[in-house]
């Protein structure tokens, strides 16, 4: 349980950064060091398994936090650390609010996934939403369009989530998710739909996805990377936990979720193929990924949820990697338009390799990490029977445009050149940009080649979620 306290470090560092905000460089280093300490302590605790005092255990339990879900909180902290260091090189004039808010989002997201109390969960979700809204409008100009869309749509989504949480609280008579008993199926149906709309807005599923391209497109890249990879994944994980905490999850709800998931994959993949802007391309690809995770939820079996949770963890790594690669391209070339790039493979070989690994992993190409989780989801779909084998085939077909889009973007950005045959000039890239890209690329490969330890963890987690 001691491990839980490492999650508080980002929030403490956020407060320190708020005091240091006049010196943005100092603030950036404090944020980076703070996140690194959190990540190192977390990793050490994970392996050393430090025993805690009874007092600390009971204090964490009283706050509604459980160590059972740390497998998802861990990547949030690790990715958050990379994002913070990447920001150091990417954000030139961070201003007063950037680092405190970034750390608040990281801390709130990591704590939300381990929260077992509805009140704590609601508070953390809202803190995340509000902090994100302010960070999105951190850059003036067109970012306000994105911020307006984000806050209005997400506030409507939050209202639905709030109503769902209150309905759960009122129906079960407790705010402790672990103590939920049984309630009438019509109440489960109502709560499930509210949850799907509320958290679905946060995840960016169709038709509540319209804020995603604008927000990811206009936010600073580190923020987009964290939102697309980690916040989205954490929200999907919270949806899984809440949905399946209500026993039994209804078949009609699961089928509805599966169809919505396919729609999300289709819209995300097709729209991604048509994009000219690198960040908007990644935004639509994140919608497609949200659809794949949602499809796992829709299947609803233990195997599917294990695949879904693995896909969430993978998506955190893969999507962050792609966003950071795009960030590196933007820093080096000052360009985001796909057609204006080209020939970068010789000038930015590490970034090119990182982008290729991320794109292939997201496309589910073996032996990379995405293959394992997507295979688990499809296998679970075929095993479930009924409509699901057919829906799994549809899912497979719908992901093809996305694969084509990744290849097209990679080819245009890194190989093709304009008529002059000249690649754009590139400037020097800081190690704070290159090192996270290298580590995340290596993780994509390692998690694909040696997935056994993670599969074991996610299998245990899915069984626990289904009350086994």
């Amino acid at each position, binding site marked *: 349980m001691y491990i839980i306290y490492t999650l508080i470090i980002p929030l403490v560092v956020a407060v320190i950064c708020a005091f240091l905000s006049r010196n943005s460089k100092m603030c950036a280093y404090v944020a980076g060091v703070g996140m690194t300490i959190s990540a190192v302590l977390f990793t050490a605790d994970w392996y050393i398994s430090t025993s805690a005092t009874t007092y600390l255990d009971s204090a964490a339990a009283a706050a509604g936090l459980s160590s059972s879900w740390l497998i998802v909180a861990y990547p949030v902290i690790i990715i958050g650390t990379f994002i913070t260091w990447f920001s150091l090189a990417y954000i030139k004039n961070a201003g007063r609010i950037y680092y405190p808010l970034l750390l608040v989002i990281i801390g709130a997201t990591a704590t939300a996934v381990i929260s077992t109390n509805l009140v704590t969960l609601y508070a953390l979700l809202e803190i995340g939403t509000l902090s994100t809204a302010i960070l999105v409008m951190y850059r003036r100009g067109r970012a306000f369009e994105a*911020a307006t869309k984000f806050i209005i749509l997400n506030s409507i989504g939050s209202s639905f989530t709030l109503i769902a949480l*209150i309905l759960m609280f009122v129906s079960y008579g407790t705010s402790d998710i672990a103590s939920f008993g049984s309630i009438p199926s019509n109440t489960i149906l109502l709560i499930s739909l509210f949850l799907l709309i509320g958290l679905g807005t946060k995840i960016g599923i169709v038709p509540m996805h319209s804020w995603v391209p604008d927000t990811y497109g206009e936010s600073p890249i580190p923020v987009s990377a964290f939102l697309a990879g980690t916040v989205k994944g954490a929200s999907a994980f919270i949806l899984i936990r809440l949905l399946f905490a209500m026993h039994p999850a209804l078949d009609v709800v699961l089928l509805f979720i599966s169809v919505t998931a396919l729609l999300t994959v289709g819209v995300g993949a097709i729209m991604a193929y048509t994009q000219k802007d690198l960040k908007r391309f990644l935004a639509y690809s994140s919608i497609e990924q949200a659809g794949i995770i949602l499809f796992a939820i829709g299947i609803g079996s233990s195997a599917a949820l294990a695949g879904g949770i693995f896909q969430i963890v993978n998506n955190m790594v893969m999507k962050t990697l792609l966003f950071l690669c795009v960030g590196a391209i933007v820093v080096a070339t000052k360009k985001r338009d796909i057609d204006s790039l080209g020939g970068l493979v010789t000038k930015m070989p590490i970034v090119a390799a990182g982008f290729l690994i991320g794109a292939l992993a997201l496309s589910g190409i073996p032996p990379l990490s995405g293959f394992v989780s997507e295979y688990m989801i499809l296998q679970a779909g075929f095993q479930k029977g009924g409509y699901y084998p057919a829906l799994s085939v549809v899912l497979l077909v719908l992901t093809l445009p996305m694969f084509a889009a990744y290849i097209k973007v990679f080819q245009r950005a890194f190989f093709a050149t304009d008529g002059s045959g000249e690649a754009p000039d590139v400037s020097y890239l800081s190690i704070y940009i290159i090192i996270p890209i290298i580590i995340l690329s290596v993780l994509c490969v390692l998690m694909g080649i040696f997935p056994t330890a993670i599969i074991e963890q996610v299998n245990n987690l899915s069984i626990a979620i289904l009350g086994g």
Partner: protein
Amino acid sequence: METVLAFGIFWVIFASLIVFLRDKWAALALLALNVTIAAFILVENDLVGAGLKAAIGVLPPVIILLTAARTREPTPRFSVATLTVGTFLTIALSCLAAFLVQSQFPVERTAETYVLFVLFGVAFLVISSQRSVLKLLLGILILENIGTLLLAWGTGTALFALFTEIFVVLITLTIAIIAVIDFAEYDTIDSSKLIKLRG
């Protein structure tokens, strides 16, 4: 049941007024909605809940009033006549929906079911029929009030109510700040224009 029905009629009237009225007056209608909800919670013998709602629930309308004073309301998308028809239609359809699902809920909660369905319908009418960012915010606040009512009817805890009210104020403040800055930059708080700045 009579108490819920009596208060419910007032809530529906105040929520419906938000559909027609200009931003400033609509904020006052929200204030009236919040005050009557606080009074209802008091009647239900939840002194802490009523105090919270009365103390914190006043803030969002005040913030909206201040924001409305610093911005200019865009031309409404629909005429008053259209909105009137829309409101009556929404209330009727919401009642029909409540009637259809009524058997799924406890008999002693019939009045609550109707009130919640109608408030839900009106909130969506506000969100879908308006251009002003502040009106959208008012629609969101009606939705949040449904949460407050559900808490009041359940075994509500002061902690949950406190968090809900605080975040409602923070959401209101954030949207209000965005509206003021939007107005300063683009001279409008018309949501249909603000989400198409890219052209």
